[in-house]
């Protein structure tokens, strides 16, 4: 089944690059939602006997990563009367190149780390690391609060991918990880973003730079 996961992971990596490459926030949100759904499928495809814990994880992941949070993001986007472009710190192409480089780095780094014997899918570690890095790139190179949240979600997705390695052994931990995403996600998005929007009548984090030395 490892080949199945690997192929899914390839899609995920491609989605990362798309996320970096798209300039409309709405479409970025869609991409992340799709990524979330894919992630949700993986645990089911990872190994033969399907136990309730795994199903739970998959269900939660698809629900949150694929629907709830993207939905809320779009709502926030609708409420916020802002330009719908991403406004990156650096252009679209450079950030894609950065993403590619990050992926390459992840591949190299992953080879340094030993893998478990029964490991069938070989892309998991590099994919998760590169997704994490792409999340960082989004966080660093985007100005809008919403896009930063998206970046954070991508980061979480990367971690979730790594969680696949542990699904069999300790599903509970993975569940908790997902669960916490829910908290933070909802909290950050609903409350703070709206407050920022109200207070600054914008979601541009460049206005959130008054506290400094």
């Amino acid at each position, binding site marked *: 089944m490892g080949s199945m996961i690997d192929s899914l992971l390839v899609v995920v990596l491609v989605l990362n690059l798309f996320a970096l490459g798209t300039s409309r926030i709405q479409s970025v949100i869609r991409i992340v939602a799709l990524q979330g759904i894919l992630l949700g499928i993986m645990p089911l495809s990872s190994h033969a006997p399907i136990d309730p814990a795994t199903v739970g994880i998959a269900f939660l992941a698809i629900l949150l990563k694929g629907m709830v949070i993207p939905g809320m993001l779009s709502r926030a986007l609708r409420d916020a009367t802002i330009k719908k472009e991403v406004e990156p710190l650096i252009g679209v192409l450079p950030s894609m190149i950065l993403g590619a480089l990050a992926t390459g780095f992840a591949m190299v780094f992953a080879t340094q780390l030993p893998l478990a014997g029964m490991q069938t899918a070989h892309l998991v570690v590099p994919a998760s690391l590169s997704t994490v890095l792409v999340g960082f790139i989004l966080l660093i*190179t985007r100005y809008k609060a919403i896009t930063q949240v998206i970046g954070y979600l991508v980061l979480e997705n990367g971690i979730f991918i790594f969680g696949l390695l542990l699904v069999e052994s300790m599903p509970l931990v993975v569940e908790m990880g997902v669960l916490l995403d829910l908290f933070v996600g909802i909290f950050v998005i609903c409350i703070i973003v709206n407050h920022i929007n109200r207070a600054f009548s914008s979601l541009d984090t460049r206005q959130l730079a008054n506290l400094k030395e």
Partner: protein
Amino acid sequence: MSPLKLILLASALLGASGIPALFGKRRSPVGQQLAVVLLLVGSGMGLYGVARALVSPAPVTMELAWLLPVGAFSVAVDAVSAIFLVPVFVLPALGAIYGLGYWPQRQHPGNGRKLSFAYGVLAGAMALVTVARDGILFLIAWEVMAVAAFFVATTEDREPAVRRAGWIYLVATHVGTLCLIALFALWQRTTGSFAWSPLSPAMAGQQPGGVTALFLLALVGFGFKAGIMPLHVWLPGAHANAPSHVSAVMSGVMLKMGIYGIVRVAGWLPVGPAWWGGLLLGVGALTAVLGILFANAQRDIKRLLAYSSIENIGIMILGIGLAVLGRTVGRADLVWLGLAGCLLHVWNHALFKGLLFFAAGAVVHETGTRDIEQMGGLARRMPRTAAVFLLGVVAISALPPLNGFVSEWLLYMGFFRSLSPVDGSIWHLTGFGAVALALTGALAAVCFCKVHGAVFLGAARSEAASDGHDPDFRLAGPMAVLAGGCVLVGFLPICVMPILDGAVQSWTGAPVAGVVAWREIAPLGWIPWLAAFLVIAVAGIVGFLIPAVCGATPRRTGTWDCGYARPTARMQYTGSSFGQSVTEIFAWVLWPRAHRPRIQALFPRVRGFEQSVPDVMLDRLATPVFQFAERILMRLRFLQQGRIQVYVVYFLAAVLTLLLLGAWLQS
């Protein structure tokens, strides 16, 4: 009650003396009077304990049950501690009496209570410092002393000048404390315990480098408090801006705690290489000469006295250097003379510097200024103050027949004796010590002739100085006591010699090689006769001979001013110009800041010439360095510049750095 218990109780009384005042009314004098009473009782008790400790043969030790977090509450008093305890129990008490008249609560409702509280704490902490025998206890007492001194020195914290001086003091003393913290941490590493007691050569043998580190750390750490020359930056400002009785206590007693530390470490470390003594001698000579040079260039009377304290510290360091050197080459007589001279000078300086600060305070109190160029002619309005001040300046210039001469004479004897070499390597070195001492003495004479003349002699140079009168007993009493002390030690030094001898014997914990009889190396029997002869002869000639030979009573008239008809007070030679000629010769170390207007045109406007001598270390080195450092650090502010994106970059950087660092350190 054992002497040690007495001393501890006394220190507790001193420390607590100011507490009642805290709860007093803003303007009620009761609290302050109560503080004075407590201080007097405590000091009396303490002095009694010290006397008992001095007569008791063995050093008294005590370990309290109460355990500190690390280390133990162990205290002891030996002759060395006793020597340093005496000023602690004398000067603060006198200063408190003086304070009744000088800083009455009624006139200073704002800060009087704070002052008398911190003043008491300062006194108590100093008493504890001298008896502490555990590293931690010592550090605690030390820092309490330092912080209390900060509070008394910044009594008038409304003035920016006072705040600045206070800050400089706080930073300087903290640097010193950090050095001491390092010292005791290393001490524990070397000895395996925090016991603050002689370091056995066996233990020290393991790390010879460690012992040198201990010595240098002690020199720097204690040197900051004592104010040895490159580290003195805090001293003039703090002394000048504090109330006068506080200045007296700080200069007369607190600086000596630094000397105490150096004496202790020098005695308790194993015998060191010769360069230790050489270093001490060099530092001492530098401190003494530069100190008095700067003093001579001041026009603020209290700054002047502060710089002269630096000079006297230098003289004490010279003594310690001689003793350390003597110990290295196994010359008991050098050890004796150097250490005895140093310790006696500790007492003497407490006596005459306290006296001078008290008198200066009385003058400042009357004239309302610290600038000696505003004074003049006060001797006729404040005759008694002028007389004791003159006595003080003669004593501090080390002129016979007063006490300053005795201690310096001991040091001279040491330097001259070191010329008859057992081991030829040390003798020319020490000879220069004698010359430095001579130069210092001559310069001190200039400096104090200047200050006494400018303040008390001639005619009043300003309105402020044209009235005023001798202070009442609260100010005069303490001065009289100290003056009496100067005369007593000066006329009958024999009395104090046995005490000094005991201190020298107990210096290293083990007797120095070849015990010496002080009567042979320091014959002082002639001093009383000489002093008596001088006094009687002068009194006789002035009192009888001159009136006898010239029948007519002298005519009084104006000063002969070389034919100029109407001399005014402004034409007098000012103190600054008196010191100027020395300042010019030594301009290459003093770097005076002069503002000389160029006089041009046929009828030039009125122009002023100004010259000031800023502290080289503080104003030309420390301050610029600090400002530079601050500018550099301000440049770094952009790291925290508000952009959350940048902060996220820091995360990546941190993770990568740590991974790479880990990998690198692994390989």
